[in-house]
């Protein structure tokens, strides 16, 4: 095999990093997968079921675990990549946390995204009121098999708040996180299935059902599961004397302000460039776009190129993506990496 001695370091052990590692190892490259958390898997680890077909997240997790089981892959966890530098002659040095340095022939950056910290949207009361939770926290509840209020009682009305931290100038995020709309619909359906007596409302600005079967899922949520949709951005939440959440929103289709009591408010938190990724980009001189994600060399045909020779991008460090697109993007990054290594 021609590439056995070639070494690729992958920064970030989420979906993109694991898929890229697997694909490269399969082709005989030596791969070091560096993950800052305790286990590889990224945000997927928290997920219970995936849109649009509600397949258990475990299936994708185990696929990825198998993918990095290859003997060509070394996994380092609890370690962050701090700086990447290309040297004349083709070697790329990678500084790891704890003052370690590794050498490689190429590097794939797959540092992923951070979830928007809902505390920054103070008016929604996250961290202030009980029963205001985020979408991943709801997934955790699904994993536990029970969705309850903070006091353990069963909710009778749940509101899904779209676009929390996305499309919002007030938190410096003008971009759309793409996956939250369909996540809200998926979770709404799951809630309805789990608790048929519980009403579920989605508060949206626009329903952006961009992927295959997403629109069908939206239709199904109305047709089969009686999920309610109200078009309007929630402006604020408070708590009334009965300790129930009260939200204020305009029902823009009726053209009047609307007040509603809720038992649980689920904030569909968006995606932001990962803080660790930003630090790495600043230290290594990678360009950041106006959405603060990594700016690829070309939006159309150079989507994995970093502009630095021997360094490639994969997954949500470049923009919000769903799992399908992340895996495709990671494979494309592998193709670019192999083309680069073969060409040298």
């Amino acid at each position, binding site marked *: 095999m021609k590439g056995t001695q070639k070494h690729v370091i992958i920064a970030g052990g989420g979906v993109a990093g694991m898929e890229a590692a697997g694909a490269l190892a399969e082709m005989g490259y030596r791969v070091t997968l560096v993950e800052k958390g305790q286990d590889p898997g990224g945000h997927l680890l928290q997920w219970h079921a995936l849109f649009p077909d509600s397949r258990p997240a475990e299936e994708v997790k185990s696929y990825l675990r198998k993918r990095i089981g290859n003997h060509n892959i070394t996994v380092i966890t609890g370690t962050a990549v701090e700086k990447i530098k290309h040297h004349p002659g083709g070697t790329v040095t990678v500084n790891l946390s704890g003052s370690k340095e590794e050498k490689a022939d190429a590097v794939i950056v797959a540092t992923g995204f951070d979830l928007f910290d809902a505390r920054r949207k103070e008016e929604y009361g996250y961290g202030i009121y009980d029963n205001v939770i985020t979408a991943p926290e709801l997934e955790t509840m699904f994993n536990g098999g029970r969705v309850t209020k903070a006091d353990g009682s069963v909710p009778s009305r749940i509101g899904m708040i779209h676009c929390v931290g996305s499309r919002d100038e007030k938190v410096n995020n003008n971009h759309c996180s793409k996956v939250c709309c369909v996540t809200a619909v998926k979770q709404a359906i799951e809630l309805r299935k789990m608790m048929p007596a519980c009403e579920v409302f989605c508060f949206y600005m626009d329903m952006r059902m961009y992927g295959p079967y997403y629109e069908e899922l939206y239709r199904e949520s109305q047709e089969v599961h009686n999920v309610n949709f109200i078009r309007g*951005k929630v*402006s604020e939440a408070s708590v009334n004397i009965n300790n129930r959440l009260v939200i204020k929103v305009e029902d*823009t289709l009726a053209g009047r302000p609307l007040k509603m009591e809720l038992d649980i408010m689920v904030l569909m938190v968006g995606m932001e460039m990962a803080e660790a990724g930003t630090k790495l980009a600043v230290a290594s001189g990678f360009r950041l776009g106006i959405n603060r994600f990594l700016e690829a060399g070309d939006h159309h045909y150079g989507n994995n190129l970093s502009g630095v020779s021997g360094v490639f991008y994969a997954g949500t460090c470049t923009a919000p993506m769903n799992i399908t697109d992340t895996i495709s993007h990671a494979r494309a990054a592998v193709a670019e990496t192999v083309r680069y290594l073969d060409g040298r």
Partner: protein
Amino acid sequence: MNVKQANKFGFSINRSRLIDYDTSDRKVREYVTLREPSFKLCFACGGCTATCTAGQHTSFNLRRLNTYIRRGEIEPLREEVTRCMLCGKCLLVCPRGVNTRNVVAMAAEAIRKLERNEL
């Protein structure tokens, strides 16, 4: 001008049933857009109306006001523009950074000028 044109026809159609974009009055829209360009940024999420202090007491609705101005429907606004308290909550809520208070102020000014035939 526009009123005259509309009076020539329109006996068969009730005017209020239809937004006649071709004969609509764009002067107010132009006046507001020129003086407060952020007016254009609204994507009608309704956050302003949800939080509105005056909206708790009366029909004032900034999102609708914005849409009406864009469509040239001025008639329903004459009363409404006088109801804003300028408290500024909408300014803190708007996800598009529209300078909401000045939109109201400029709309009110435009409508006043329109009434005096100064626009």
